């Protein structure tokens, strides 16, 4: 039998060696490998139109309207159901998307490059909170915003980034963890740092009006950096894929219907189970568990990379937001050390004497100790277009790890 310990060490090393840089932006169709004119990327494991949850359908409708492929909801639904549109998981195209995670051909995306391994990753720009495409909203104002982002924000951002040549993501994230971010549900610190980096460059490369508008937009959206922390995690994790004999998790993703994981030593196979509804979530006024859509989005890539819920001990504000004490947060992080292969060498939890965040989920430990990885996530309304209804902590479903363990034993013995 293969030496799992050695393989896991190798996989983790690759993850820790990553040097993720933001190097520019581009149109999905031009830069994302395998992207097609009639293709729409979505969050989570593979799924067909008929099984998609409300928000994801809504986002698809919005995307089709945005692309001009349909003029209204009805047309869009027909088209989506017709089979002419090809649906494919972001993860199959080196991409990740929050919530519905919809990426359509003409959407602008960040381009992340891992200088240590030369691989790339992609993600759209964050539209802000409330009525947004990623929550399944497709009303005219949503489409309008997307157009503005494409026509105004994208060129300005691209110019600014290319002027700076590259922006070191690891550096920003490491600092943000010391500013109370865990980089999944809270990106305030990181967004501010990113703002400080990008602003001077934009002033240099774009006209005043554009610069003001774009910077205002970033300033008004604490989640701006989420769409950068996610591809950062993705671009750092991908080199750890396909390490023969490794039981390390390289992707956790949800499409609002299924929760899926991929294991380094098991190629591109997905192990899935029904996505759970966050049980102990905090809902915004006027909403309740009844309104919540099951867990959705590629954002659990953050936990896969040892951030998000795994680093919640560094983000007391979030713990309080979901109704816990700072000690609860530390305890959550401490329990994740029991299912990870190692600790991060750059990302730290200040309140644990700057101990590295628990990194590299080992399916064996998850199953043996019966401790599910836990994810610190936003919650979408199950009806398309209403938007985020809350945030909470959700345990990954144990079944996906059990299935993976069984498959692993089959393959390697």
């Amino acid at each position: 039998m293969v030496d799992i310990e050695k393989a896991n060490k190798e996989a983790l090393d690759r993850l820790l060696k990553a040097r993720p840089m933001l190097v520019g932006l581009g149109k999905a169709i031009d830069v994302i490998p395998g992207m097609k004119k009639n293709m729409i990327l979505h969050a989570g494991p593979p799924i067909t139109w008929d099984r998609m949850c409300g928000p994801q359908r809504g986002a698809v409708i919005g995307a089709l309207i945005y692309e001009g492929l349909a003029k209204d909801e009805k047309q869009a639904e027909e088209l989506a159901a017709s089979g002419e549109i090809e649906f494919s998981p972001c993860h199959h195209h080196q991409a990740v998307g929050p919530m519905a995670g919809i990426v359509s051909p003409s959407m602008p995306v960040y381009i992340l490059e891992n200088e240590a391994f030369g691989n790339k990753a992609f993600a759209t720009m964050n539209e802000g909170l409330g009525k947004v495409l990623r929550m399944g909203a497709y009303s005219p104002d949503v489409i309008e915003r997307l157009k503005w982002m494409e026509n105004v924000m994208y060129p300005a951002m691209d110019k600014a980034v290319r002027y700076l040549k590259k922006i070191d993501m690891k550096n920003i994230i490491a600092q943000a963890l010391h500013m109370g971010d865990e980089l999944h549900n809270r990106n305030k610190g990181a967004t501010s740092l990113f703002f400080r980096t990008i602003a001077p460059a934009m002033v240099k490369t774009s006209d005043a009006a554009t610069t003001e508008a774009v910077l205002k937009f970033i300033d008004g959206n604490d989640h701006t950096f989420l769409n950068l922390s996610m591809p950062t995690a993705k671009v750092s994790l991908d080199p750890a894929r396909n390490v023969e004999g490794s039981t390390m998790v390289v992707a956790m993703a949800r499409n609002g219907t299924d929760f899926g994981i991929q294991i380094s030593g098991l190629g591109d196979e997905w192990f899935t189970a029904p996505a759970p509804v966050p049980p102990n979530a905090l809902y915004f006024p006027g909403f309740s568990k009844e309104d919540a859509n099951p867990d959705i989005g590629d954002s659990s890539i953050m936990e896969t990379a040892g951030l998000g819920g795994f680093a919640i001990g560094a983000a007391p504000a979030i713990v309080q937001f979901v109704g816990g004490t700072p000690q609860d947060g530390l305890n959550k992080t401490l329990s994740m050390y029991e299912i990870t292969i190692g600790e991060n060498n750059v990302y730290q939890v200040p309140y644990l004497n700057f101990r590295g965040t628990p990194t590299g989920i080992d399916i064996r430990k998850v199953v043996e100790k019966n401790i599910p990885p836990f994810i610190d996530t936003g919650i979408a309304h199950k009806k398309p277009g209403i938007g985020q209804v809350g945030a909470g902590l959700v345990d990954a479903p144990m079944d996906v790890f059990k299935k993976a363990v069984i498959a692993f034993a089959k393959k390697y013995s």
Partner: protein
Amino acid sequence: MRKISDLFKQELKVINIGLLSFKESLDDVGVKVIQVDWRPPAGGDEEVMDALKKLLGK
């Protein structure tokens, strides 16, 4: 080579897996003890247990 009698020369330091009362009575007499919040492996799922044992090299 370790000997059982070596234990008698050390300060007793206990890890308690299971009944909490055993920890509390040791706290009572000032013995250093730490409680494990134990859960059955694989939630008791036999098929998974077997697969797991292979992976853990058992």
